[in-house]
Structure formats: structure tokens, C-alpha cells
């Protein structure tokens, strides 16, 4: 069996004495899609925030490709984060720049690619999520569903090995939602990346595996 890309060991989280997660264990292996399902307030977003290193756990540890992200240097954490694409529940697009600039941001900041190459990559990425013609729009001009898709485009722009999506299909109509899943499956088959999709009740085509 392949070595897990993400390993969570005995993860416990409590906020002001309120236990949110209690000794959670899970392994996600290469090319695997894991769907986390749970009621509102059950700690799904908290778990994702810990997996991507935004919060430190009360106890337990999280290993990404064998590196404990809570006990490593800032530089190593940066390198790990570059391998993880994240799409947030609220999309979290940067409101002061256009949609295409949002998608181009990781490419401009973290690569040495020339601007014309970045422009082509941004167009292709936006086209993959059905937003090819909306690149010039500012985030406030997008509908809720379009924002989600733009956030997914930004998350996959760098072609990361690991994708973490928080409520990717919330606010999307079934057709767009299915297209998004198809695009992600296509990417999985062709680029051997791993994804962690959460609460995809409206998404039918996934093949969930949990540990």
C-alpha cells in the first residue's frame, strides 16, 4: 500500500474547553479522493484548517508527505504549502484584483514563468471551470457559484499535488457542480494528484474512501 500523502494522528482540538475534534486519525494516499461528510458544526472545516496548517492542534500531529507541519521550519512549511491547493468555503478571492489576476497570483508570485505564458495558463484554468469569459470581472461582479469556481481555478493553477476543497459545490447548480467534478476527475486521472473533497452531497460522481 502506498505511503499516505496526508496522515492525521490522534488530532484533538478544543477551543476554550470546548472539544471540537477528539483523537481523529486518517490517512489519505496518492490519487485518492476523500470526502468528509458531517453535520453543521461537526468540525469539518476545523479539520481542514489543521490539515493545511492554518491552526495548531491542541494535541496530535499532521504529516504532509511525511513532514510534521506543526514541528517544521517556516521555510519547509512554505514548501509544503506550495504543494497544496486550497479552495475555501467562502471562496476567499482577493477583492482588489480581477478574477484572472486572482488565478494568476500564485503563478506570478511562486514561479518565474513569463507573463504571456501565465496569461495562457490562466485562460486555460478558467476555461476548465467554465469561467473563460469572466476573467476580467472583479470578484464582487461574480455570482456565488462563479466565485467558488474561480477559487477552484486559483487552487489548481499551480498544479499542486494535493487539493483541499471546503464545500466546493455549495451554491452551484447541479449542472455546473457535475462539470466541476468531471474537471477534477479528469485532472486526477491525468495528473495523478490527490484531492480531499468535502461535503459533496450534490456531487454524484465521486468514489469516497475514508480511513
Amino acid at each position, binding site marked *: 500500500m502506498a505511503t499516505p500523502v496526508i496522515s492525521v494522528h490522534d488530532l484533538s482540538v478544543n477551543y476554550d474547553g470546548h472539544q471540537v475534534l477528539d483523537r481523529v486519525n486518517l490517512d489519505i494516499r496518492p490519487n485518492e479522493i476523500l470526502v468528509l461528510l458531517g453535520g453543521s458544526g461537526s468540525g469539518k472545516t476545523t479539520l481542514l484548517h489543521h490539515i493545511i496548517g492554518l491552526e495548531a492542534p491542541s494535541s496530535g500531529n499532521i504529516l504532509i508527505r511525511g513532514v510534521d507541519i506543526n514541528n517544521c521550519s517556516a521555510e519547509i512549511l512554505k514548501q509544503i504549502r506550495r504543494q497544496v491547493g486550497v479552495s*475555501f468555503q467562502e471562496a476567499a478571492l482577493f477583492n482588489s484584483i480581477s478574477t484572472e489576476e486572482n488565478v494568476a*497570483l500564485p503563478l506570478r*508570485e511562486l514561479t518565474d514563468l513569463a507573463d504571456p505564458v501565465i496569461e495562457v495558463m490562466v485562460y486555460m484554468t478558467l476555461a476548465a471551470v467554465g469561467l473563460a469569459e469572466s476573467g476580467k470581472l472583479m470578484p464582487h461582479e461574480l455570482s456565488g457559484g462563479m466565485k467558488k469556481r474561480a477559487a477552484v481555478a486559483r487552487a489548481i493553477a499551480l498544479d499542486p499535488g494535493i487539493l483541499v476543497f471546503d464545500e466546493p459545490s455549495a451554491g452551484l447548480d447541479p449542472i455546473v457542480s457535475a462539470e466541476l467534478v468531471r474537471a477534477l476527475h479528469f485532472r486526477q486521472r491525468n495528473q495523478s494528484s490527490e484531492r480531499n473533497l468535502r461535503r459533496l452531497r450534490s456531487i454524484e460522481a465521486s468514489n469516497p474512501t475514508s480511513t
Partner: protein
Amino acid sequence: MNILEGIGEGMIQQFAYIGGLSDQFWSGIRALPCVLPVIGKRGRWQEAIRQMTAIGVAALPMIAIMAASAGMILALQGAAELRRFGALRYVIDLVAVGFTRELGPLLTAIVVSGRSGSAFSAEIGTMVVTSEIDALRTLALDPVEFVLAPKYLAAMIMVPCLTVMCNVFGILAGAGFMYLSTRMALGIYVRYVFDSILLRDVFGGLIKSLAFATIIVHVGCMEGFKVRGGPEAVGRSTTSAVVRSTFLVILADLFFTAAFYLARMQ
């Protein structure tokens, strides 16, 4: 909780705040080269230019009106007393020295704090609430480098420029008063101004303005980064940014004025 515990906890919070500010200050200094043209990262310099427009150019009309009003007030108040001793000419010294050493940097800092410090706090606070800061972190981008550094560089350039403009408008208001009360020509007035102020007065004012710019940017950004919760927390952070930065600017002004005074005594 007894009174001593309350005082102790308050002190610890204030020390933690100052510690956080100094930590952010050094991070800001380290991040500044990323915003410089040529050697900095692409696109960041344009953001610094945008901030310069917002902090400096957009504030100029307000600075001009406030400086002219304060200059006229200072001249009127000074003249009311000095006229009794037949020393109306010293109104020029009062306005020129008062502005270059004190009023120019202070008025500018108050305007920038009210306009830009609050805007920094609101902008960053909103970014926190909408997870934009988290998104930056997950993209392996440092929020201090990405959000604070362009603002810091812009303020370090524009606040001294605004201070010079504030001095000019304040001193010109004094010229207006002298012309209206004694028909003194502008050329003579300017000559008296240059006689009364020293280069060290101008440099002292500019050093103060750099310190004030640092305080305003770091307090505004820190209040934004501290936001937790929803939009009402952003509102509170905006108020806190203006109150804290104005308070710290006045404390810093006292420190610098005392230091320059002691330096002149030696």
C-alpha cells in the same frame, strides 16, 4: 478578579501588544526590499504606487486646508499677544518654527492616521473575515510581505512629503496674515522665514514624520490582522486603529521633542 489582578492583566496585554508591534515592525523591515522597484518582486511596486496615491495624493487637499487653517490660527493667537509688545514680526518665527518642528509632522500624522490608518485596518480586517489572509498563507505568501510592505513603503515616502507640504501651506497662511495686518510683501516674509528656521528643524520634523508613518502603518495593520469574528469586529478595529495610533504618535512626538531639546542644550 481583584484590582491588582486586573491591573496586572491589563499590563500584560499592553506589553503583549507592544511585543506584537515590534515583531511586526521587524517583519515589515525585512519585507521592504520585496516592494522596491527592479530588485523587488513583480507587481509589488505597482501596489506601492497605488498606496502612495491613496495615502499621499488623495490626502493633499485636506492637509492643505488644515495646515492653512492652523497656520492662520497660530498667527492670530500669537499676534494677539505679541502685538502688545510691538513684536508682531515674531509671528513669522512662531509660525515657521512651530510648523517645521511640531505642527507640520503632527497635523500630517493625525490626518494620515484618520484617513489611511483606519483604511488599512478596515481593509486587512475584511481580508481576515473573508479568509483572504488565510488564502495568502495557504499560497505560501507572507501577509506582512504581501499586504503590509507596500503600505509601509508608500507611507515612508508620502508622509514626509505631506509633512513638507503641510509646512509650506501653514507658513503661507502666516504670510497671508502678515500681508493683511502689516502689508508685508511675500518676498520679505520668506526671507524672515529662512532666517528663523534652521536645517536641523526641518530634518527633525522629517525624522518625526518617518516615525509617525511607522506607527500609523503598523498599528493600522496590526489592528486589522487581529480581527476575529464578523463585520462588527472590523468596525471596532478601525476605531481602535485611529485611537491607538494617534495616542502613540503623540507619545512619540513627546519623546522626539524631548530628545531634540536635550540635543540642542548640549
